[in-house]
């Protein structure tokens, strides 16, 4: 069973590598240069890939949180914790690359634009989630509270997506409504490159998730061994206490029967 899952993980790792290398090639060699932004716009492909992977991670925290509250199965809690951690990694990449991209285009590293602000709030929510988890890892009450926190935090995702439409924002709107319906506002080569980069980062997310869940299972194994050891020591302890206190002491002759 373990070998079978390892093989799947190898295949997933290989597919991730292939898509990421192809994405890098396409981002630099295949996709045309954007007229207004120049070369720096090529950050966009992996920046958006990170955003997509971050959103999928948070969606998974949401689903796993609901499943954990309904079933109480530790496996769902493991998935939620792992997805939140990897989601924070991808959201950090998105925040930093967005800032680096903004500097030559907008002239500032950061601006309190609705999309940027709501995304920063999302990042802070899941950093707080991880801090909450780290405060008491083995407490089921903390796991339940974290599940609720993760579910409520996911509400920020649609706000981030809709923020550029709902409020005045300088962030670009990727999906544009035209007479032909919703379009990307990109050339076909750019769309193809974007799809390959997003797929590559999605696969990377699932690969890291599988590794992270395995790590959590290993940690549970350590805890189980420790608990079993503590329980055995506890079971042996009364035997030692029940032993007569003065067993080896010499009894005075007058007290002997």
């Amino acid at each position, binding site marked *: 069973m373990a070998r079978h899952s390892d093989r799947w993980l190898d295949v997933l790792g290989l597919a991730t590598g292939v898509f990421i290398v192809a994405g890098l090639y396409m981002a630099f060699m295949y996709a045309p240069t954007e007229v207004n932004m120049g*070369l*720096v716009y090529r950050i966009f492909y992996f920046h958006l890939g990170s955003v997509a992977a971050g959103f999928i991670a948070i969606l998974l925290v949401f689903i796993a949180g609901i499943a954990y509250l309904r079933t109480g199965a530790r496996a769902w809690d493991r998935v939620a914790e792992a997805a939140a951690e990897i989601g924070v990694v991808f959201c950090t990449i998105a925040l930093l690359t967005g800032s680096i991209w903004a500097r*030559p285009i907008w002239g500032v590293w950061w601006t309190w634009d609705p999309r940027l602000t709501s995304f920063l709030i999302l990042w802070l929510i899941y950093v707080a989630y991880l801090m909450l988890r780290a405060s008491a890892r083995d407490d089921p009450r903390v796991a339940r509270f974290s599940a609720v926190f993760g579910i409520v935090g996911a509400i920020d995702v649609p706000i981030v997506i809709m923020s550029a439409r709902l409020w005045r924002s300088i962030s670009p709107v990727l999906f544009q409504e035209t007479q032909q319906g919703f379009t990307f506002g990109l050339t076909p080569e750019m769309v193809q490159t974007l799809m390959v980069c997003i797929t590559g980062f999605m696969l990377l997310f699932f690969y*890291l998730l599988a590794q992270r869940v395995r*790590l959590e299972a290993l940690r549970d194994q*350590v805890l189980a061994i420790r608990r079993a050891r503590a329980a055995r020591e506890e079971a042996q302890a009364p035997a030692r206490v029940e032993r007569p206190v003065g067993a*080896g002491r010499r009894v005075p002759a007058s007290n002997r029967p």
Partner: protein
Amino acid sequence: MDVTLKDILAEIRNLSYLFYGYSVIWIIILGYVFTLSRREQNLRGQVEELRRTVDAEESDQSTVDSRQSPDRTGRSLSRDQ
């Protein structure tokens, strides 16, 4: 279209931001993969150590139990009895 020195400098500056952007992406991802691998090694080490300790404790316990078990004459073989 004439390409001026200003355009070339702007492109070079753009290129440096592109470099920073991609560096950040791969440093964070590789750093995370490295921490995952370290944590896995650490946990595997803990599992091995705990198993060894438990095995050693179990073998000690079985030795003590065999010493404490009474022999044919009903006397205990244990030293403290």
